[in-house]
């Protein structure tokens, strides 16, 4: 409360962004768990249906003319690796978010996935702001707010001596 009044950023005057309010902590945790479930469901479904042989290369190859074309076609050159990494990655991102472990690292890869979906799906029939973009924004939000610290295991992990001695790890945790 000792802060001086800052008219440009009114939130700063009252919300010291430790997210101390119980509602803020509750909702940031809910966003994390529900976003995590979204990816976990997608990854586990692929694992159960096609194991480590998910066919992602064709989709990426089809993105050749898009903004992320060079990245997508480069990735499409590794179909076997992708067949395993896509389902495992989605599952791992989902588990990380649901349990709150390495949330910022997991969300970074979530942004990568959703960036490819946003550009690749190109479902712009209702405008550029679509659910793919919203999904990407959720991951960014989770990174910015360090959502793993609220009812997530990252809160405990960050208190360990190992992390305390290596504070840069908090950019991957949290």
């Amino acid at each position, binding site marked *: *409360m000792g802060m001086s009044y800052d008219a440009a950023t009114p939130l700063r005057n009252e919300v010291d962004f430790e997210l*101390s*309010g119980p509602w*803020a902590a*509750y909702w940031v945790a809910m966003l994390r768990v529900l976003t995590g*479930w979204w990816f976990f*469901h997608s990854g586990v*479904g692929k694992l*159960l*249906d096609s194991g480590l042989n998910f066919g992602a290369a064709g989709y990426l190859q089809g993105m050749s003319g898009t903004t992320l074309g060079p990245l997508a076609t480069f990735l499409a050159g590794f179909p076997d690796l992708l067949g395993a990494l896509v389902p495992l990655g989605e599952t791992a991102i989902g588990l990380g978010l649901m349990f709150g472990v390495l949330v910022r690292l997991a969300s970074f890869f979530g942004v990568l996935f959703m960036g490819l979906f946003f550009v690749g799906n190109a479902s712009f029939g209702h405008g550029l702001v679509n659910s793919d973009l919203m999904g990407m924004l959720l991951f960014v939000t989770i990174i910015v707010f360090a959502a793993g610290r609220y009812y997530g295991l990252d809160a405990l992990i960050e208190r360990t001596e190992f992390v305390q001695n290596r504070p840069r790890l908090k950019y991957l945790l949290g």
Partner: protein
Amino acid sequence: MQSNDVDLADRLAIALSGGLLLLGVVVTGLIETLDGAPRGAAPVTNDAGEVIAQPTIDPNIRTALVVAALLVLLVYALYRVAVPHVGTTKSGEPATESYPSD
């Protein structure tokens, strides 16, 4: 601002809305995922468009749980407008009357 004060209404609204959301999305979703096709909430159709597998849990039940969670938040919001948190003023002195602190 976000108040650290929580009363019974806050706790009830958080627990009930959170529980309903997690039940409607995650718990029922886990059941749906693990018990075979379809793994999502939509039926599986063959090439002819015929439905060959229905979801185990009616998606209407799952969406009803999600809508119920939002209704809990709406009821809480209306209650909070009617009965604001008794907070403190900006100078830190106790407010002399009810003062919305959120």
